[in-house]
């Protein structure tokens, strides 16, 4: 993917991730500068979760997604969450806990899921950058911590 093309697609995707949307959903955007989306989820009585989506080859490849504490340090303790989206075991390539969900690079490169290619969902409305953020957010909302 040519970097200029990836940046153009990225910029178009994040243009609607506005402060107004953040206010309504409890999202805080720390960065929306190519290739990084750095976003915290917040909710009453919850510990914020910060995600970094690195979208260098958007959208030829899905974003690499890492989980962080509110201060930006890498999250080392597994999340307490009933959803299967947050996988607390180390990813065989990234060697850290990861988002086990269609739309994350860690999912599509995991040996258990290489048969479920990103190409089959790329460009779908649910797999824009905002769509991926929304899916993870819905999973996070099911937790309590």
């Amino acid at each position, binding site marked *: 993917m040519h970097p200029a093309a990836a940046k153009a697609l990225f910029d178009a995707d994040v243009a609607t991730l506005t402060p*107004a949307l953040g206010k309504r959903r409890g999202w805080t955007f720390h960065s929306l500068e190519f290739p990084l989306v750095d976003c915290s989820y917040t909710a009453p009585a919850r510990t914020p979760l910060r995600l970094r989506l690195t979208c260098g080859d958007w959208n030829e490849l899905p974003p690499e997604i890492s989980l962080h504490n509110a201060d930006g340090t890498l999250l080392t303790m597994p999340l307490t969450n009933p959803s299967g989206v947050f996988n607390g075991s180390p990813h065989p390539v990234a060697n850290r806990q990861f988002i086990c969900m269609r739309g*994350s690079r860690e999912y599509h490169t995991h040996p258990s899921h290489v048969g479920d290619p990103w190409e089959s969902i790329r460009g779908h409305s649910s797999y824009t950058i905002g769509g991926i953020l929304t899916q993870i957010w819905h999973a996070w909302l099911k937790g309590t911590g």
Partner: protein
Amino acid sequence: MNTEQSNERSDGHGPDSHFVEVSISTTAGFFPAEGFNRVPVNQKVEVELRKTMEALKIRDTAGWVASVITPTGKRPIDPAKTYAENGLSGELEIDWGPSEGGGG
């Protein structure tokens, strides 16, 4: 004396009870872009969702969920039902987007 106005106030069925004010948020934008649309309380929620899809050029909403945002959190609503059937009234902030992803 305005009898009609008096009756509306006493029985709680003033003109505004027949309508809700709706703003729908998605990661593709808001519908309407600013403010709220006034729609009948007995209209199905899916009508405004369809308008949102068209206005924001969202191609596919299979598996998307609609929720109403309240001060205490989000509550899922059924788009196939009316606002009244969903127990909604007044000014509504509806969030719409893909549900929790599969994987695991």
